[in-house]
């Protein structure tokens, strides 16, 4: 490369910028639509990802008891910040079923009348030495009604929570009964056993995320959607890239440049440089919207992590891979229509395989193994490493290296094809 060729390269980039800047619709497609797409999907899928089972769900508690059992259930559900609790003890079961059917409540917990009294009677009989299967009072039954469209894991989590609350109530009733029996036995007017909450035999389970590993950890909606759709937008930009290249070939301007012996890297590089810049602006806009705009709309804020260089490396290498793919398609497609349809289909397949449309973490194992062939998977894995697991530039290097290798392969083949004399 000499200075003259570098000046040609700059002229080529400048020409591409002028051509693109005069296409207003293209600018909207490049910059506005991907941001809107990410905002809409992140909001729409907010509750379908990550560690937010039942987030924001309305749960109706029909407490016909009003005693210890009802209080225990209400307290347990109130302690869950992702549930919106509605108390409706006066509703009939028919009304409650109707409300769940209509989707007004995702769950309804039915606590029967006299539940606390019946529980106390059963505890007293058992404490008096009556075998459990001979106790006259049967176990008290609470029921959980749920929307059939709701994810099964949410229901399991809620059932677990309710059982835990009932177990706590059971313990409380047993302790009270034990106090009563001991007082009678020892002839004391006052005898108080320690409150279970004061005992602390076990400390609460402490959760700790372990970064460095891959898979098994679901990203939140915005952690999944922001990088996924950024990558898809980058790869979809290859469609206008290849179309503009084919149009130049059809118009003859490419032939004219070839007849002028303009080096191939000047012509291909001029286009690549412009689209690389567009990709980086796209990524910056999407990330900015995910960090600053999404929370204002009620979505989760994207935590960009502590390693912006890792994001820059991933964004740059993903863009190079996308551009390489686009130029390769442009050089092999005969018409713009052929390039458009092939690119769109190929990108959607790569996106489906790569975990853009469906997160890799919820794919079956064999599909996760197949997904390693998709460049979008390499990019997405890298971004998730940064956003979900706090990965650094070192952690994303393998993904970036794969993307750059893919790009080099595509550009190399494309350059040979471009320079080939018939």
């Amino acid at each position, binding site marked *: 490369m000499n200075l003259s060729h570098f000046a*040609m390269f700059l*002229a080529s980039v400048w020409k591409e910028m002028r051509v693109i800047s*005069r296409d207003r619709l293209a600018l909207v497609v490049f910059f506005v639509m991907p941001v809107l797409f990410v905002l809409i999907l992140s909001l729409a899928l907010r509750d379908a990802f990550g560690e937010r089972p039942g987030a924001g769900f309305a749960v109706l508690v029909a407490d016909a008891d009003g005693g210890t059992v009802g209080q225990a259930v209400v307290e347990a559900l109130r302690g869950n910040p992702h549930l919106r609790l509605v108390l409706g003890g006066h509703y009939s079961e028919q009304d409650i079923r109707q409300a769940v059917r209509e989707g007004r409540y995702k769950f309804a917990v039915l606590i029967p009348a006299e539940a606390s009294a019946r529980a106390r009677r059963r505890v007293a009989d058992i404490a008096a030495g009556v075998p459990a299967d001979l106790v006259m009072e049967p176990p008290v039954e609470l029921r959980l009604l749920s929307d059939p469209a709701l994810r099964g894991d949410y229901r399991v989590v809620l059932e677990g929570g309710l059982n835990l609350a009932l177990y706590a109530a059971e313990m409380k009733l047993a302790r009270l009964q034990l106090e009563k029996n001991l007082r009678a036995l020892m002839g004391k007017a006052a005898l108080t056993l320690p409150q279970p909450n004061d005992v602390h035999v076990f400390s609460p389970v402490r959760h700790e995320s372990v970064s460095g590993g891959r898979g098994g950890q679901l990203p939140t909606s915005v952690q999944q959607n922001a990088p996924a759709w950024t990558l898809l937008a980058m790869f979809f930009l290859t469609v206008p890239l290849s179309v503009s290249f084919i149009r130049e070939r059809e*118009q003859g301007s490419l*032939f*004219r440049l070839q*007849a002028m*012996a*303009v080096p191939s890297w000047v012509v291909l590089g001029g286009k690549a440089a412009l689209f690389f810049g567009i990709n980086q602006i796209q990524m910056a806009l999407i990330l900015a919207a995910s960090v600053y705009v999404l929370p204002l709309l009620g979505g989760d804020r994207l935590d960009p992590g502590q390693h912006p260089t890792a994001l820059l490396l991933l964004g740059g290498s993903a863009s190079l891979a996308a551009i390489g793919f686009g130029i390769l398609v442009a050089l092999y497609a005969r018409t713009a229509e052929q390039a458009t349809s092939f690119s769109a289909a190929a990108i959607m397949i790569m996106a489906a395989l790569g975990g853009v449309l469906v997160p890799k973490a919820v794919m079956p194992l064999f599909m996760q193994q197949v997904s390693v062939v998709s460049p979008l998977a390499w990019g997405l894995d890298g971004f998730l490493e940064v956003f979900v697991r706090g990965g650094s530039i070192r952690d994303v290097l393998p993904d970036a290296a794969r993307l750059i290798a893919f790009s080099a392969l595509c550009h190399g083949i494309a350059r040979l094809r471009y320079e080939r004399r*018939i």
Partner: protein
Amino acid sequence: MRKPAGHTIQPPDLLPDVMNPTPNTAAATFLAFDGVVKAYPGTRRRALDGVTLSVPRGAFFGLLGPNGAGKTTLLSMLVGRIAPDAGSVRVGGRAIGREVLATIGMSPQEPAIYPTLSARENLEYFGRMQGLRGAHLKERVQFCLDLAEISDAADRRVEQFSGGYKRRLNLVIALIHEPEILLLDETTVAIDPHSRSLIHQRLRELHASGVTIVLSTHYMEEAEQLCQEIAIMNHGRLVIQGRVEALLAAQANDTLVLMLDREPPLALLARLQATPGLRDVVVEGRRILASASPQRLGALLELLRESGVEARSLAYGGGSLEQMFLNLTGAEQEAA
């Protein structure tokens, strides 16, 4: 293919005196094709089949032939986009390479321009791609705009241009770097008479300034007006090459050529064909060709006057390139 009756064009092997009238020496030959063969993948017929052709420095050279004759393939070889399977292509004794390409300006068949850029931006861009910079680039851009007479629209987007303006811009882009050789591929196809006339004028001026011009065209009249020397190709083979006057003189005969002031009415053809002493009457636009004895001229002119047309010129023995072309390519096609 239509073949005018009454004109017999000798096949190339019977025209040794007009073939390659310019001595084919290293000094005179500028562009040289030597035994060039080219076959495209997937096709049975060769696009070029042993073409040996020379163009002298400073010539205005016409490359004629029907579609598929191999003209564009020849031009593409000169700009290094197509490599011959056999034979050689040389310019000034050198093989096609970066240095040679810097001396060539190419005006492709379709306007090879960026429609969303202005004429000035197109010229600036292609000028930069030719290595021009700064004041020299600006000077050349303005020169080209003036040459094409499109300065008034220099800053308008090319997509708003008429076909004629686009063709003119297409031509001057090829001149931005002051090439020694100008290759024109059907440059005046489908444009208005004014633009065509302007392009012809500019080409004459360029030729007078020493530029070697190779014009590939379908228009025989255009080649006849502009070119000093022509080559006719058909089915990838060179059918004939020579100076235009020599080729036309070789087919001199008793053909009367009448140029009218306007296209004659249809009824005139029937009356001419019915006129005693006139044979093989052919009407080509404003031109009438016929075999006629000088004694019948008076009656012929009278007939024209009665039909409301006037003769602008009248000559004997003037065969035309078009007739020669039709005969040669027709004969070739029949042989093929």
